[in-house]
């Protein structure tokens, strides 16, 4: 069953976006495609959540954005990771891993 936005913590979405953007400048449509592909259709992020998240991350200075030409020759807004975004991602990843590890071990122990 696909997980929709309401089930996804906001911080988690931010982290996922930052992670995807590490791969290189990418526009909003590309991000939503990647999310879907990589998560094997599990994560369905509504555009209603994606774009505000992108703008929020840009405003915080974690993403840098510029307008450029897309693969089909149209103007699109490309996002890329800033230096501060990189740090933030690192922090969030390690937090996430710790949390996930802890949750996993609890689940295992309780079985």
């Amino acid at each position: 069953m696909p997980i929709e936005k309401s089930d996804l913590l906001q911080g988690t979405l931010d982290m996922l976006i930052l992670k995807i953007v590490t791969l290189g400048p990418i526009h909003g449509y590309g991000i939503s495609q990647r999310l879907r592909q990589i998560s094997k259709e599990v994560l369905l992020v509504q555009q209603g959540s994606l774009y505000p998240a992108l703008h929020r991350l840009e405003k915080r200075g974690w993403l840098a954005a510029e307008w450029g030409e897309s693969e089909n020759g149209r103007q699109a807004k490309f996002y890329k990771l800033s230096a501060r975004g990189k740090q933030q991602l690192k922090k969030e990843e390690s937090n996430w891993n710790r949390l996930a590890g802890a949750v996993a071990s609890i689940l295992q122990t309780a079985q």
Partner: protein
Amino acid sequence: MPSWRFPFRKRPLDPQYEAELCFHIEKLTDENIAAGMTPEEARRRAVLEFGGAEQIKEELRDVQRIRILETTLKNFQWALRFIRKSPSFSIVVILTLALGIGANSAVFSAIDAILLRPLPYPEGDRLIELQQVNQKVQRPQTRLAPPRLEDWNRLNSTFEGITGYYTEDDSETSGALPEKIKVAYVAPRFLQVFGVAPVLGRDINSGEEHFGGPNAILISDHLWRRRFAADPNVLAKQLRIHDSLWSIVGVMPASFAFPDRDTEAWLPVPPDAPYAQHREWGWFVAMGRLKPGVTVDQARSNLETVQAELGKQYPQTDADLTPGVVPLKETTISGVRGSLWMLFGAVSLLLLITCTNIVALLLARGTQRQHEISVRLSLGASRFMVVCQLLTESFVLALTGALVGLVVAGAASNVFRGLAKDFPRVEEIHLDGRIVLYTLVCSVFATLLCGLFPAFRCTRGNLSGALAQAGRSHVSGHTPLQWLLVGVQVALAVTLLGGAGLLLRSFQALGHVSPGFDPQNVLTFHITGSYGETVDLKKLRARITRTLDELRALPGVESAATSIFLPGVPNAYQNELTVSEGAADPNRKIVAETRIVSPSYFGTMRIPLLAGELCREDGNSFNVMVNRSFANAYFPGATVIGRHLQEPGNPLLPGGEIRGITGDAREEGLNREPGPAVYWCVSAPDPDPYYLVRARTEPTAMAAVLRRKIKEIEPARSVFDIIPLEEHLNDAFGENRLRTILLTFFAVTAVSLACIGLYGTLSYSVAARRREVGLRLALGALQGQIVKQFLLKGLAVTFLGCLAGWGLAAAFARVLSGMLYGVSPSDAATLLSVVLLMMLVAAFAALIPSLRAAHVDPMQVLREE
């Protein structure tokens, strides 16, 4: 969360949102086409899949929108809650700030009213005071002769009008008793130049400004209320001055107090009167109103040209003269500028100390709130938001402090008005919008000064660390910053205390000078006289001599004298003299302080006769007395008695024979070493000299007796300004006393604040190290050691602050140098005692928390572990 929408708000980013979202929809459409749909179908599906584009755009706008209003409101709510939750902390901060800001606003209100605002006349900055200056004589600046005033007014091209005035204390005799009123005798155009009209009646008209025209007088609001009970029909009434009746033609507004608050009437001096035609006689303090756009320099060069022309026309009287041109405001206020800025500097230092104190409080508070702040940051608040919130708290505190401060300022400026009653324009001091605005600016300034640093400091650092140690020990024992702040406070307090110390020392020194005369039990007063009496000098002398004889005959009166000046009240009147027999050193100019006194003056003032005999007054030739300094300076080793002195250029004083040598007295002011002085023995030098009466007992008790006697012998004259000489001397140094009192008050407040700061920081440090102290006590440390440790810490910081303060005080004492007497600005004894005093007070402040540290119960601490 309600979002604040501004319908009129510009949306410059909308096209970008549109483009970005459109691109997404187009990509989806492409995708659908690739999946085999028709373009229309593909587009429809894409739009459907994408969802509400408008809604997304609104959300994007929300992201960009800085929700200033909403966030600010929220922050204010939090700030108010914070203040409610910690009332004692908040009250301390608010009261401290109220004191600091209130004192600052009070002094600023005085500075604003006295120094900054234009004079209270329409376009008062265009009013200029004019003098005639002769650089070739001892006192170059003199009053303007009436014909010259008229010439300047007629010939210049830069003034709208030039006028002038002089004042006289006259008797008004239309009532049952003669009453003294201070009259300003004014040149034509007086009210036009000031741009002020009477509130009742009219200005003096041109007919009344001519010799032989009708007698007209303007009266002050005060006289109108006092004498005529604010009668609207006053214009029909008359006043009797100098045996003539003067019809009241106008009542001036209460706000018009020129030349001073005591002036009660304005009388025109006709420029065409025969007695007003002498170009040698300086009568008027002149003033002009500049034409719009004319600068003071332009006016000066214009008048210089005019006067140069007059010099050619009247070489005898006008060749050496040049005009003196100074803004009227400058001549009004220049005397008190130094004192006021000095006080402003002092209150600003005080405010700085207050803020430093609060920084320390907020830092301590912030450490306690570290946990709360960490939680907020970890929940996603940006550091900027938290800083804003902390600043809002400081601002609410500062604003409340400022509002209470306004009340303090109101009270303080009332006190100031009382203390500084001799300051110019002091009646213009009041709290108004400008002061409120200034106070608000102060509070913003205080917010930034107090709040910014703690806010950044408290939001800095490691989140997880703070969260992890939450609940254990909220505070850290390392407080170098707080100690630095204590040091700064001590340094600033020592600076202020040093200044106050120097002023106090000079005040004390002034009280201990031996003036060379005895001011005790001497009563001074005036008896009205008018310059018209100078027409018959013999009669004038007879009147004054008779008055003096009658006064001496009164029981309780030891002696009575007249003098032009009061001894000891600062007033220099230096003149160049020549000696008929030739000076001892022909190359040396003889310059001496000139006093004109009755022969009885020396006995009355108890100035000893050292050689020769007392001068006499026979009406034919003049007698002169000189003081010891004069004899020693100009005739060392030679006889001075019997020589004849002349004042060149003064036709009124022909040569006088030196009859004797007196002791040195501080005639020119208690704060001046006596220099060479010459006393001309003339009892009636002018119709209104000072009368000096030495009573056998307390002099004020004599006032009623004196009044009765004068009433008996001179029924048409009034006695006024009956004041003991000692009070005159006190008043003469009133400004001195005022700044000493205020600076001392500020310094004491500063020291108290610094001690509170020291006490607070040390207490905090003791609380933070409770566990450590408990353990050490448990391990056998002596209580004395603990006390010593904390006490030394406090004293070391105080000492370093004192050293810095010494340096600051030495630097700032330069500001005071003109205000000191008998003590040098770098007086080590004063500064040393200031430092010792500070250390002593600080030791007390540090002792309490140190003792508390030693009484930590080890068992209790260990149990808490």
